[in-house]
């Protein structure tokens, strides 16, 4: 009896403490208590970040960044404390506190910031500036820019090694991957993905014109290798980060946009916009396991329910592939005369959240049933989505 009384007393204290905590958090203006509970939507033309509750699909918060900002990519720090975005037109990085949804810092960076990445320990925020040919290094402890690393050629995406020692930068305006020593924040090495063929001299229009270099050096799910697709060369280079050299060339279709890693670690996919195919790469043998028909202007690949979903931005279709049989598995019509952007997948690999900019909506695709739900009025020109810890967080 006495024991029971003590237990009740203890439980009461706990409940009171929790209630007090909840009230306290509310008093502090806490809007998002659980950073994994929301989908972040970056709205290019309304210059804001919208936060959609994953369960209710209601917009639970919105952070206006300023006029003429044009935010490009949104990402949450691995510790769930901050959400950041680069304002492409404002040439600034924006840091938002997740709990309160307050814009806590605006930091001038270089020209046209687009894609970004966090170091695994959340300490460093690397902001790529494609038109400034640089990476801005932002210290997330002091919330200040501590360095600008020059010497890149249209740096599109940054990826960190799991131990945070090195960062790899895809240069879309060149055919090499930049290696950054994260301790010194210096570009220490350039890894050419492949040699430009000798026959290129006969085709200056292709090789001297608009270059489609390397979008991203994507780590394999086990973190042992990086895969970088080069659009102009039609090659995926496999990089061993221990020696920082290319150990294998995989020839894929024409003009691969970039590489996307399947969640089970078996396959990766390059959408090849030059010939409207996808190349499915076997990560064990580093060979092309299948080349299958797809659609025009592909902007992303998501994986859910054992399938790959390839976004064809201008056709209004999402192409579906069975990742067990490596066979086409139909396509989902998302609409007519619409522009599909990019998507993220929830951490259960069940649903995808696809930004559709023409009608200012997010399309939620159930990976298993392929049913589509429309969430309207998320903001003007939604450009991309992001979920903390999702394996499919990417941008154009």
């Amino acid at each position, binding site marked *: 009896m006495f024991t029971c009384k003590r237990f009740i007393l203890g439980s009461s204290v706990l409940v009171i403490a929790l209630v007090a905590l909840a009230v306290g958090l509310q008093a502090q203006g806490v809007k998002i208590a659980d950073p994994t509970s929301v989908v972040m939507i970056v709205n290019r033309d309304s210059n804001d970040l919208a936060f959609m509750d994953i369960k209710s699909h209601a917009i639970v918060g919105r952070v206006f960044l300023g006029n003429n900002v044009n935010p490009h990519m949104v990402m949450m720090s691995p510790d769930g404390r901050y959400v950041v975005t680069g304002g492409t037109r404002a040439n600034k990085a924006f840091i938002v506190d997740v709990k309160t949804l307050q814009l806590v810092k605006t930091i001038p960076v270089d020209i046209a910031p687009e894609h970004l990445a966090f170091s695994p320990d959340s300490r460093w925020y690397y902001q790529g500036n494609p038109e400034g040919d640089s990476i801005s290094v932002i210290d997330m402890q002091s919330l200040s820019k501590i360095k600008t690393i020059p010497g890149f050629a249209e740096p599109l995406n940054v990826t960190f090694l799991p131990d945070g020692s090195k960062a790899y930068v895809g240069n879309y305006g060149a055919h090499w991957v930049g290696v950054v020593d994260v301790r010194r924040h210096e570009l220490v090495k350039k890894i050419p993905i492949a040699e430009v063929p000798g026959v290129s001299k006969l085709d200056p229009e292709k090789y001297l014109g608009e270059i489609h270099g390397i979008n991203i050096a994507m780590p394999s799910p086990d973190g042992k290798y990086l895969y970088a697709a080069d659009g102009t060369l039609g090659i995926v280079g496999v990089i061993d980060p221990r020696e920082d050299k290319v150990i294998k060339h995989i020839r894929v279709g024409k003009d691969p946009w970039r590489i996307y890693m399947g969640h089970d670690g078996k396959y990766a996919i390059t959408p090849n916009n030059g010939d409207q195919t996808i190349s499915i790469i076997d990560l064990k043998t580093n060979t092309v396991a299948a080349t299958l028909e797809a659609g025009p202007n592909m902007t992303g690949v998501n994986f859910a329910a054992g399938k790959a979903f390839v976004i064809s931005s201008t056709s209004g279709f999402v192409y579906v592939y069975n990742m067990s049989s490596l*066979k086409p598995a*139909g396509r989902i019509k998302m609409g007519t005369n619409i522009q599909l952007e990019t998507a993220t997948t929830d951490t259960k690999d069940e649903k995808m959240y696809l930004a559709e900019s023409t009608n200012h909506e997010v399309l939620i695709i159930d990976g298993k049933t392929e049913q589509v739900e429309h969430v309207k009025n998320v903001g003007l020109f939604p450009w991309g989505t992001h979920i903390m810890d999702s394996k499919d967080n990417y941008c154009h």
Partner: protein
Amino acid sequence: MRRSLSVVRGAALLAAAIVCGGGVAFAQATQKPGQAPQMNMANMDHRGALSGRVRDGAGTGQAEVTVQVVSQENGAMFSATTDAQGNYAFGALPVSKYEVSVTRNGLTAYRKRDVDVAMDGKAQLDITLDAAAAAAAADFERQDLLAKISTLEQRITDLESSAVLSEPETRTRRVTVFLDANGNEHDEQVPGSKPVVTYRRERTYRRQTINEKIEAALEDAAKHSVTVGVDAAMATQFAGRTKGDLDANRRAYALASADLFFTAGIAQNTVFFADIVGLSGAPPDAEIPSLTLLNGYTARLVRQNELNLREAWLRTELFGQKLSLTAGRLDLTNYFDHNALSNDESTQFISDALVNNQVLGLDVNGTGVAAELDPKNGIKVKFGLQQNNNDATNLGDSLFTLSEVGYTFTPFALPEGNYRLWFRTDNTDPLGTRKAVGVSLDQKLSPAFGVFGRWGRSESEGGHDRYYSAGVGISKGFIFNPEDTWGVGYAQTELFSGQQEKLVEGYYNFSLTEKLRLSFTLTGVVDRPETAATTGKFGYLLPGIRFQAAF
């Protein structure tokens, strides 16, 4: 008893920890007066300290004054607040030169540049907030403001030259509305209403740069214009007799071909296409009576040195673009038996026996319809009909039908393969409808190496004609340039009448640029014109060179 006590203690500790945790989290966002900014020293590079005292003109320490320092090298910003005695301290600043400022009542009361914080050093800066310091700061502020205005002016000029500022655009959208019994329109469904499709103008906000605008306008203009494509080729072949006594020996042949393609989008998911071809020259088929064409381009040769309309059709896509219908003047073999490794005389094998299944039996292009159902799940179903005689007097005359089922998959952990089964009928022969059946496959064994095969059997007068071919195609491996391809193939054609042909060919196709290709071919052929006769047997070796420009 001990256990229940520990439960109570645990619960209390947990509650306290949660409450304290919340408190700490809140405290991190604020900074106590006089305290240096909270930093994780474990992860920090070498840094230095800066401290001092803020006084007024009379020398009295000023409390609750915010001192801000900004790195002159990278713009990193830090601030600290003075304690009751006017002391401030920055415990760990990154090594840099700093601009130190104090703002009071919205005005800068003090500013000093080039304050050096050295590695592991302890810099001292005492600040006096008197009239002289305020005047110096104001002057500094003025200069700073002028510089900012100048930067802003430049930025506005840049923006005006590259951006279209927030002008809302109008766009007409196709929407579904609901009409009630009174004919009133509703955006949402109401009882008794029916859905109706209509069009509505809407304002949209899509900010674009001038470049984006130009690109969109050009893309829109291209959609409404006719695009022209050209495929020009020159195929030169040399013939050396290896067997028989035909006149043709050690002779050269050349056939020049130019195709003009016109494509125009004329409605949603609907295009018009026309192909006009002109040919000139003499192919080996003019002198060597082989069972199949030794130059695949010869099939296009209708009249020398004249332009001929090869194809002119409309194509539309229905049911979510799953079903495509093509109608007009067609070459039905373009839609069926589409073998990935041996189906193109311009970039693969030049001999027609390795381009088309020889028992398909379609001689000419003509009026027809082709339907293709492609649900994008690997299965394709096709049906087409076409007239096989340009002199036919009615649509039922010389009617040629083709049906095909195709399947794409990755068998036995191999890369993708395409498998097709087709069936055709042809009522050109007045004695009755002739039927034929065939299979066609192309299977990649590795990303670089693929095999292909065809087989066909066709009814002919009194029996059956037979055809088969097989070979390999290589790309993305064992090549000189990345886009090069090469292959080797064998084809055998046997007619019920006794005629037989065995043909072997190899080619290497150099992809010089995206628009220019140069190929070398070597064909060996042995023909037996009749069953019993061996004297009429002839054989040839034909090396060739093919130059193709497509743009």
